[in-house]
């Protein structure tokens, strides 16, 4: 991580650091990319001042699950627009999925994406690699080579698809364990989901849309937990959406399995009754589930079954969404609404404390992704590299996708009145978002 000679003073914010809770008003001085001092009444000699009154000063957010679409689908998003969206949402690290064209299934594509992130210089862009070559589910991709290249790939996933062949998944886990890699599983029994458009249930019947049964996810989750326990490989379950999945994970954790999981803001906020408008921005995979599933997911967040909040930021162009429901692409953007939903839905309703929610966006993903390999720290303490998000938890705003920095605007939250907004983001000791404006890279 490159240093920066800029001197920054964050004034009068309340500092959150995992394990230490939230402080009272205090100043944070940053110099040469490092947090130099945390104290009251620091003199701003020669420093750029960032006002943080009424704000929380948090470690930068980490998103384990985004789609940046580069290479191959730059009309939806690229590393540049994705980075701008990320820092607008307070993220200093984003891990991008390999379902690009060509897919990230070898070291050269992984290094390309990683280097593009470095060039943009707004946040850390860490590519996940594909489990299988071409994401085809047939032959293993070179995890060792991807792991030892510049991008130091740790997470492997065929996200968007599932590794249907259990034998291949078993061998992938054995191999990943040897390489000290993490398997991130998109769980879906595709024979149960063919043609599916939304959660199977009363609403799919009412709307005449083909259903995607919960069991399609649960069968996949159960299989992968079994294989992880057999092989002792580290497994991370992506975008959990059903009550039964939460139970399977709760039980696995009770057995001390090496299993972690994530949920998305849309899965903890929305249920399938919203689909009555046929808004294609609500078409996601896994689909929005029933209210009972949403409640179970919230319980999983509250009791610690769910480790991580990740957005599954999935940009799509207007013409791919402004079409018949069954022809629309799956996915919604999420980087720029994540914090607001976390605060408005989880914190305001007492599902999680603010500290508890932030931990799932900072410390937990940092641990799972082992970001210390990059010299990254998810803490705010003197001597730590400065990756910081300053946000106002009480700031009320109305979501307007046209204001998003992401190239795509496919959000169903347009018009929602929400609470919580990122004001400043500091990456590697440099201000990349100041007063909600992205700061172009210094030449």
């Amino acid at each position: 991580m490159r240093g920066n000679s800029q001197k920054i003073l964050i004034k009068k914010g309340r500092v959150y650091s995992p394990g230490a809770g939230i402080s009272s008003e205090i100043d944070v001085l940053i110099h040469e990319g490092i947090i130099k001092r945390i104290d009251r009444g620091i003199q701003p000699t020669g420093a750029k001042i960032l006002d943080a009154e009424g704000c929380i000063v948090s470690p930068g957010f980490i998103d384990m699950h985004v789609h940046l679409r580069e290479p191959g689908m730059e009309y939806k998003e690229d590393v540049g627009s994705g980075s701008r969206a990320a820092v607008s949402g307070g993220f200093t690290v984003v891990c991008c999925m390999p379902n690009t064209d060509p897919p990230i299934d070898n070291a050269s594509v992984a290094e390309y994406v990683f280097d593009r992130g470095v060039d943009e210089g707004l946040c850390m862009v860490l590519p996940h690699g594909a489990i299988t070559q071409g994401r085809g589910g047939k032959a293993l991709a070179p995890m060792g080579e991807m792991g030892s290249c510049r991008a130091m790939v740790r997470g492997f996933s065929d996200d968007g698809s599932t590794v249907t062949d259990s034998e291949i998944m078993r061998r992938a886990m054995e191999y990943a364990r040897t390489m000290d890699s993490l398997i991130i599983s998109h769980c879906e029994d595709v024979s149960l989901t063919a043609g599916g458009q939304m959660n199977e249930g009363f609403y799919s019947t009412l709307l005449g849309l083909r259903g995607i049964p919960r069991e399609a996810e649960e069968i996949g989750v159960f299989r992968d937990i079994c294989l992880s326990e057999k092989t002792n490989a580290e497994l991370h379950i992506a975008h959990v959406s059903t009550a039964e999945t939460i139970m399977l994970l709760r039980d696995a954790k009770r057995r001390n399995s090496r299993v972690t999981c994530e949920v998305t803001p849309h899965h903890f906020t929305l249920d399938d009754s919203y689909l009555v408008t046929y808004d294609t921005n609500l078409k996601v995979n896994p689909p929005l589930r029933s209210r009972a599933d949403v409640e179970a997911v919230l319980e999983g967040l509250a009791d610690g079954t769910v480790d991580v909040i990740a957005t599954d930021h999935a940009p799509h162009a207007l013409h791919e969404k402004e079409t018949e429901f069954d022809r629309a692409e799956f996915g919604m953007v999420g980087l720029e609404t994540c914090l607001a939903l976390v605060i408005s839905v989880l914190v305001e309703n007492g599902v999680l404390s603010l500290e508890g929610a932030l931990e799932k966006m900072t410390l937990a993903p940092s641990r799972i992704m082992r970001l210390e390999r990059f010299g990254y720290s998810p803490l705010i303490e003197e001597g730590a590299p400065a990756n910081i998000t300053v946000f106002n938890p009480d700031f009320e705003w109305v979501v307007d996708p046209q204001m998003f920095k992401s190239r795509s605007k496919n959000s169903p939250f347009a018009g929602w009145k929400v609470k919580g907004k990122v004001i400043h983001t500091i990456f590697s000791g440099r201000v990349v978002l100041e007063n909600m404006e992205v700061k172009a890279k210094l030449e």
Partner: protein
Amino acid sequence: MSTPDPLKTGVSKTLKFDPLMHSGTRRHLLSINDLSSEDIIRLLDSARSFAEVSKRPVKKVPALRGKTIVNMFIEPSTRTRMSFELAAKRLSADVVTFTAGASSISKGESLKDTAKTIVAMGVDAVVIRHSSAGAPRLLTQWVDCSVINAGDGMHEHPTQALLDLYTMRERLGKLEGLKVAIVGDIDHSRVARSNILALNKVGASVLLVAPRSLLPAGIEEMGVEITGSIDEALQWCDVLYLLRIQLERVSESRFPSLREYTLQYGLTQTRWSRLKRKPLVMHPGPMNRGVEIASVVADEVEPVITGQVAAGVAVRMAVLYELLGGPTGVGGSD
């Protein structure tokens, strides 16, 4: 844990439903749920007076003279397309019909662009048949005219339900308290969905007759009873509504074979002749003789089924008149 209902907390969103068939804004017919029971009865009454028009030597009234209606049939259809076309013509509207094969849709134009193009030509209503559920609702966002759903995917076919209710009411003299059994592939049937909604609204009771593999999830929550036995249904019902069975459901493993379907769920000659009290048999067409209904039985009940077709024109005249004609929907002839 309490449910954080976004509608009641810091997050809020107004769910936008389309304007219903009430005066004021632009009016559409997208779903039976757009109609109240009073709306349904009013439309059926209005259809009765329009039915009379079709019996005249000159089958035409000037009710919609100067109005332009586009029939947009993105999915193939014969009877519904002809029925809407005749309904429009008998109301003296100008009507243009286009089908998917002969349209810009087949050249890859999006539904949005196609719709905008059509409406730019000055159109009062679009009647749309589409294989995608929700397409008519989508259309209302893009066009500044009335939209009428003529069948969208597995979602709904509201005018079919109205003509079915019309037929039941004319034949049996009432709707409230009527016992209607719907037999067959409920899962794929927009006709079944619209009929269930409409029958519930007017106070009829609905029994679905099918193997579980042909029933969609959560259908019970729509207010129906379910049985796996057609014989039980035949003892109970006033109306036996048969749905068309398609061969491809066999390859989808919905049931083992057409032969087995006929044995379990077909209105066979044996079942029919055994009945002391015979129900009104209805079918949305086209019938598969020898599958859901024996040919002999089909011949016997044919007047009812062709009656449904005739009612279709009258009901669609009533719908078009209600949407385009004036403040109230009664009495189309002048």
